[in-house]
C-alpha cells in the first residue's frame, strides 16, 4: 500500500513537468494536424475586408486588440472574457481565396482543442455575414 502511495505521489509530482525543449520547440501534434483545425479559407480576395471583420469579431468576443499590421496580415488580442490571447494571420492565396489562421493560448498553456477554433471561425463567419448585410 505504501509503495502505491509513493508511486502516486511521484506521478503527481512529475505530471506537468516538461523539458525546456518541449516548451521552446516541442509539439504534441504534427504541423499538419495543428494547421488543420487552426485554419479556414474564405471565398473572397478582399484581404482588408476580412481583416476588418476579424477585428470586429474579436471585439464581439471581448478581445482588446494589442497589435495589427495590414501589410503582414496579423492581428493579436487579449480576451477579457476568457483569460486567453489570440493571434490571427491572414494570407491571400494564389487561387483567389483568403486563408485565415488562428492560434491561442490560455493562461500558461496553448489551446490544442479544435472546438474553440471552430467557435472562433463560426463567429467570424457570422461577422462576415453581418458586414455583408450592413448590420452594426
Amino acid at each position, binding site marked *: 500500500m505504501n509503495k502505491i502511495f509513493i508511486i502516486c505521489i511521484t506521478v503527481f509530482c512529475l505530471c506537468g513537468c516538461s523539458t525546456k525543449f518541449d516548451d521552446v520547440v516541442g509539439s504534441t501534434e504534427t504541423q499538419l494536424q495543428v494547421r488543420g483545425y487552426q485554419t479556414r479559407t474564405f471565398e473572397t480576395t478582399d484581404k*482588408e475586408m476580412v481583416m476588418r471583420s476579424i477585428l470586429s469579431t474579436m471585439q464581439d468576443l471581448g478581445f482588446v486588440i494589442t497589435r495589427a499590421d495590414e501589410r503582414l496580415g496579423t492581428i493579436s488580442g487579449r480576451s477579457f472574457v476568457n483569460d*486567453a490571447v489570440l493571434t490571427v494571420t491572414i494570407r491571400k492565396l494564389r487561387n483567389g481565396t483568403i486563408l485565415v489562421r488562428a492560434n491561442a493560448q490560455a493562461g500558461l498553456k496553448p489551446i490544442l482543442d479544435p*472546438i474553440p477554433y471552430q467557435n472562433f471561425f463560426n463567429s467570424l463567419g457570422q461577422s462576415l455575414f453581418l458586414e455583408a448585410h450592413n448590420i452594426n
Partner: protein
Amino acid sequence: MKNLLYVIVLFVLLSGCTSYNEYFKLDKNYLQRRNQETRYIEGANEEDMLVAAGQVLQDLGYMMDEIEFDLGLLTGFKTREAIPKAGQIGIIVLAALGGTQAVYDVSQQIYVTIISTKHPTRKGYNVRVEFARVIFNNLGQSRAEKIQDEKIYMAFFDKLSQSLFLTENNL
C-alpha cells in the same frame, strides 16, 4: 490513508482536464454590446476621425500603443490607482480587527481600442470603442474585466463629437 490516496489519484486524473469548449463563442448580447460601443459619424474622412479620436485619448490621459491607419485602428492604455470602494474599506477595517491580511485593489491598467469602418452605403464611418481593465490588488494578484457601463461609452462619444469639431477648427 486510503481516502487520501483516492483524492490524490483523482487529482492526478483530473489535472489538465480544462475545457475550452465555451471559448471564442459569441454570447446572445453581442449585438447589443456592438451597438453600445459603436456610433455612426457623418461627414468626416477616416484620417480626420482617427486624429480626433487620438486627441480624445490624449485628453483622457491615455498613452498611444498601436496605430494602424490602413485598418482604422488605434489602441491606448493608462495606469491609475484603483481607489478602494466603501465595501473594500469595510473589509480592510474588519481584517484589521480580526488580525488577518486584508485584500484590496491597488492599481488598474485601462485599455482602449478604437476601430473605424467605412459605412457600406452611407458617406460616413462607424467608430467602435472598447474599454477593458486589469485590476491589481495589494497581494500582486490581478483580475481582468471588460468595462460595459453604458454611461462611459456615451461620454466617450460626446467627447469624440466635440473633438471632431475642435480638430476641424484647428483647436
